[in-house]
Each structure stands twice: as C-alpha cells, then as structure tokens.
C-alpha cells in the first residue's frame, strides 16, 4: 500500500520527446511504472521510450485510459500543460518543471481548486512508492519498501534522507517531493492527511526549509489530527534574511519563515527535529520502538 501512486497508476508523460522527458520515461518504465503513453504536440503517431506519442492529452487519455500525468516541458509551457491534463480528466498531475512564474501558479491553483484533480509540484522531484511505481526523478535504487512516509520541499535533500534510511534498512511507503516554489499544488498538510489514513505508513518524515509558513501549519495539523509519529528536518538555519536560497520559495521575509521558528513550532507539538539529515534514521528508529 502506498499513497498517490502505485500499481493502479497509468501514466502519460507530457514532453516525452525532450531530453529529460525521454530519459526519465525509460527510468520509470525500468522501475516498473505503467507508462502508457506520451504527449508532444506535433509528434502524434511517433514512438518514444517504447511508448506511443499523442498530440494531445485528450487523445492520450482516450486511447490509453491514463489517470496520471507527469510534466517535463519548459517553464513557459508548463501552466498550459497542467490545464490541458486537467481538462483531459487526469486525476494526478506531477509537474517536475522548475521556474514557473508565480503569477502563473496563482492562476493554475485558482483553476484547479474547482476541479477533481491533484497537482504535485512544480519544481519537485515527483514521488515514488518503493516496489510499486515511481512518477518522478527520484533514483529507485536508493529506496526500499517499508513503513516510513516522506514528504519534502526539496529534491536532493530528500535523496539524502532516503539514502540514510535505506542504508539502515528502514524502508519507505511513499516519498513525496511537493516542490520548492512559494505556490504549489499540494501542501504538507495534504500529504500528512494521506499518510495518516494509509494503513501501511507507520510514521512520517517531514523535510522542510525556510520561507512561508507551511511547516508551522503542518505543526498545527499534527497536533490536531496525527496519531502517527513525525520526525522532521528543517534546512536553512544559517540562511540570511532577504536572500532567495535557490528555491523561489526559500526566503526569509520580514523576519518570518525562519528555520528557528519552524523548528520551535514542530517541537512544541512533539515532533522530533533532527539537527542534520543523517540523524533522521536514529530518531525514526526511536519513534517506532
């Protein structure tokens, strides 16, 4: 069992004929994900990475029964790709693309909020349910199946944590990268809700960073509704105020969004916060005992 992606996932890849799109499609197929097709306007009828390419999402969904889409198109085309997948009836959209303008994301979210669709990302590594399916770019070989659910705002930092857990033989149910942008499709709370309801997730690791207040709101939610143990790590203790630390969302504004504030909020509700990523397995091991 897992959340969001698994054996029932039927995936199409938007931007499948691009360099990244094609490479990662092959990786996802090798991992065992059911990739049923791809979409690149103007290249319908061709094949890429061993699957058929369609001109539009609508055609792809009609022909393959796809329920999930992953987006690898450049930032300027990404909002359109999200709207297209939504209107084609896709239920889960994962947008890997980095650099989508924030005003575009405001429109995307306002539109999606009235639809039966979930968006993960943008600017994210996607997600993986070890042993079942991966929809994204997280290397399958660093993961191992198990009961720890991971939700994170950053990519490589997540890999670091997965790797540390796997090295200790601690498996994961699903690892979800929600992305580093200020406005994205899915929040910590959304994913925590799903982990809480997932019978095979027995504890959760939350990896946050400076900027915004998503971690603080997650802390309130944990206090009110989570029965499963949560371990956390917050990146950016040494980040200066007012500077955007790579991710568009990672910025301390007007004294808000600091690592110290987030850590305090989480610790206040009983979440153990690791001092560094490699400490997370120790804290997780303690939590299940």
């Amino acid at each position, binding site marked *: 069992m897992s959340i969001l992606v698994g054996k029932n996932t039927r995936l199409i890849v938007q931007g499948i004929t691009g360099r990244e799109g094609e490479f990662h499609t092959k990786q996802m197929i090798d991992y065992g994900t059911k990739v049923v097709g791809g979409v690149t306007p103007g290249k319908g009828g061709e094949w890429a990475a061993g699957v058929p390419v369609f001109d539009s999402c609508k055609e792809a969904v009609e022909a393959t029964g796809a329920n999930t889409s992953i987006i690898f198109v450049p930032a300027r085309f990404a909002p359109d790709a999200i709207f297209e997948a939504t209107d084609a009836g896709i239920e889960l959209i994962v947008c890997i693309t980095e650099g989508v*303008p924030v005003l575009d994301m405001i429109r995307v979210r306002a539109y999606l909020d009235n639809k039966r669709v979930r968006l993960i990302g943008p600017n994210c590594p996607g997600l993986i349910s070890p042993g079942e399916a991966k929809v994204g770019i997280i290397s399958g070989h660093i993961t191992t199946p198990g009961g720890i659910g991971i939700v*994170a705002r950053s990519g490589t930092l997540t890999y670091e944590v997965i790797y540390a857990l796997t090295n200790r033989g601690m498996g994961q149910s699903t690892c979800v990268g929600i992305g580093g942008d200020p406005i994205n499709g899915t929040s910590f709370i959304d994913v925590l809700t799903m982990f809480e*309801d997932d019978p095979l997730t027995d504890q959760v690791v939350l990896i946050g960073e400076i900027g915004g207040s998503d971690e603080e709101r997650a802390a309130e939610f944990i206090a009110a*509704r989570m029965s499963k143990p949560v371990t956390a790590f917050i*990146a950016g203790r040494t980040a*200066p105020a007012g500077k955007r630390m790579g991710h568009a*969302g990672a910025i301390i504004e007007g004294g808000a969004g600091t690592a110290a504030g987030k850590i305090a909020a989480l610790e206040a509700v009983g979440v153990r916060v690791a001092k560094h990523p490699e400490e997370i397995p*120790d804290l997780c091991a303690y939590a299940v005992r």
Partner: protein
Amino acid sequence: MKLHEYQSKQLFAKYSIPVPRGEVATVPEDARRIARDLGRRVVVKAQVLVGGRGKAGGVKLANNPDDAEKVAGQILGMDLKGLIVRKVLVDEAADIQNEIYLGIVIDRVPRRAVMMASAAGGMDIEEVARTAPARIIRVAIDPFLGLREYQTRQIAYAIGLPRELVKDFNTIAQGLYRCFVDVDASLAEINPLVVTGEGKLQAVDGKILIDDNALFRHPDLAALRDVDEEAPSETEARQRGLSYIKLDGEIGCMVNGAGLAMATMDMTQLFGGSPANFLDIGGGAQADKVAAALRIILADSNVKAVLINIFGGITRCDEVARGIVAALEEVKTSVPMVVRLVGTNEEEGRHILAAAKMETARTLAEAAQKAVALVKGEAAVVQLPPVAIKPLIARRKPVDRKPAIKKPAAKKAKLIVKKPALKSKARK
C-alpha cells in the same frame, strides 16, 4: 530582480499613477541642471538597492540648484550599507500633508496577490505589521476577476481617505495592480503615497520586485538589471546558471540542489564552522560549470576550506570530479578541500579525485567535520556527537484513544483535504 526607485516610478507613470517630476543624475553638475529645470525645491535621492536610505544619509533636500549640486556631490560616491552610490534621483519636493502605504505582494497562504494599505505610510511596512497589524488593510485579489472597484473603495474608506480623493485613489490602485500583473512582479509598492498640500495624491517613492522566473517574457525589464548592485561573483554565477549567495563565513560550499545546499551550510555551523556561501550547481551540471563554481568560491579571500557535497542523480559524480580537477589546474590554490560524492558514477568520481590526492568523505557529517578541522588547521578527527533523543511528550496518544480524537477531526479535514482523499474517506 529589484528595480531602482526611478525605474519603478517610470513604470508607475505609464499606469496613470502620478509621480513627482524628476530625472536621474550621475554627476553633481547634472543635479544642478535638473534642479534649475524643475524650478523649485528638490529632493536628491541615492539610487541603490537597499532600504533605509534616508536614515543612512542618502536622501537630502535642496532649496536651489547650487544646493542640489552640493548635496548630490555628497551623496554620489558614498558607501550606503556596502553599496557605492552611482546615481541620484533629483525629484521636485512634494508638499506632504499625509502619508499612506499602498502595496501588492504575493501571499502564500490564500495563494493570491494581496493589496495592502495603511494610513501609517512612510514607515517600514514590516515594522507596522509587527507593532500594529490592525493598521494594515489587506484585500486578496482573485486572479480571474482582478482587483474590483468595490475592493479599492473598501481600502480607501478603511484607511480614512477623504471622500474627494477616493476616485483618484481607485485609479492609482487599479494602475498599480495592472502594473504588477503586466511586469510579473512579486512585489510592487508605493511608500509613501502622499496627500499633497494641493489635495492631490502622488507616489513619492516606489519599489518593484520582479519574479526572476518570469524574466523570459520581459527582455526589456531584464535589461534594466543593475550589475553594479550585485557582487561581481554573484553576477558571474548568474550568467553561468549557478545559484550563488555570498556569506561571511570561512567554509566555501558547493552542492547540487537548493535544499541540500542549505543543509550542508547548516552542517558546517553545527560542527563549529561557518559557511562562506550558498551555492547550488543545479541538476546535471557539466565539468565546466563545476569549474566555474569552484573559481567563484575561491575568489572569496575569506574561504579557508572548501566542502563539496554532491548527491548524484541527474548530476554525475565523475563529471563533477573532472570539473574539480580542471578548475584546480587553472586556479592554483592552497585552500584545502573535502569532497563527498554519492550516487550516479560515484566510484569513477572517487578514482579521479584519488589521483588528485583530495580529501574525501563518505557521509555528510564526516565531510562537514573534516572541513571544519581543515579551517582550524587540525587533522580531521571525526567523531559524531551522540544523538540526542528527546523524550516523547504526551501528545503521542496511545492507540486506544485514537477514535476519540479522530471523530471531530474528520470534519475538520473536509475543509482542508482535497478531493482524492475525500473520496476515500467517504467510502469509509
């Protein structure tokens, strides 16, 4: 990307927002000419991208052209919070009766652009937000409906604007929102918006931040970037597609991925060092990009050791290793380095580095401790501190109490949870 005050006000003027007449001068003589042309009292304002210019002595009044030349001479060339003033704006001085704050920001929580206004203009709005949050009026703007007139009227009444100015205020607020959307701003503010002695509204100071991610559709605005205002190393990094921010510490950091880069910086501090920079080489960096990153780090004379942490995914460790070796051939340096490579092609990468006799590490903690030891000139003795485990607090409720807390919570979840989760709940 930040725009200068004069650039912001030029944009405002295009959107029917009244701004004072004025021009930019780079030498004192120009300030004299501008003041003479304006023919009245002027204000000479340093154009640097930092806040608090007035308090730092970068804004001065001048009663006549002679005065204007004199104060421009004082301001031009001065060091304002680490930036040299190269331009001044010479504006006609406003007859200020009242000061208002009006701005638009992106608010992450409602996921909307939000218009903010306050009768406490002229002050730092963040200060007002801290000390008197009730004095700030906030209105969220629907992206499809835009800013409606009833909303701007609501703001005008709430800040106690005289009735005869409400119509002009509406024009200004609408102009500000159109400007915000058209230039893909993440912040646009008029502070202060003043009520003049003649009973008019005028945008005396302005600030616009443009979303860097949207610059691809605004080449004209991208060209306005003032490279004098950033550290040369930050300019070079940006042109190379690297994300680099200079800090004050001693350990240069090179990492792939923003989150991991921050975690690596934090790690140096945890073990008693301090990071010299944030540097994300991004995904899939090739050897030349790695070499450029290393050159940028080593150009900082504070750097006493370099910590390279690469978690290979799209990025290949052997490419990174080749880049490091190439950079070291070019930049002869005695600065010691610690390299940690994990992931795609890590073995090949380690072989390349072993040939170059570089210090390597297996874990992030080990790498950070070695870097800190190198700064102190010690041989690295790696010893991980014992993991401090805090006792569980009462929140971890025993399983049998679960239903009791779950029932009311399910109702609450309906408000937050999106459809797929809702569906599964309904089935239960």
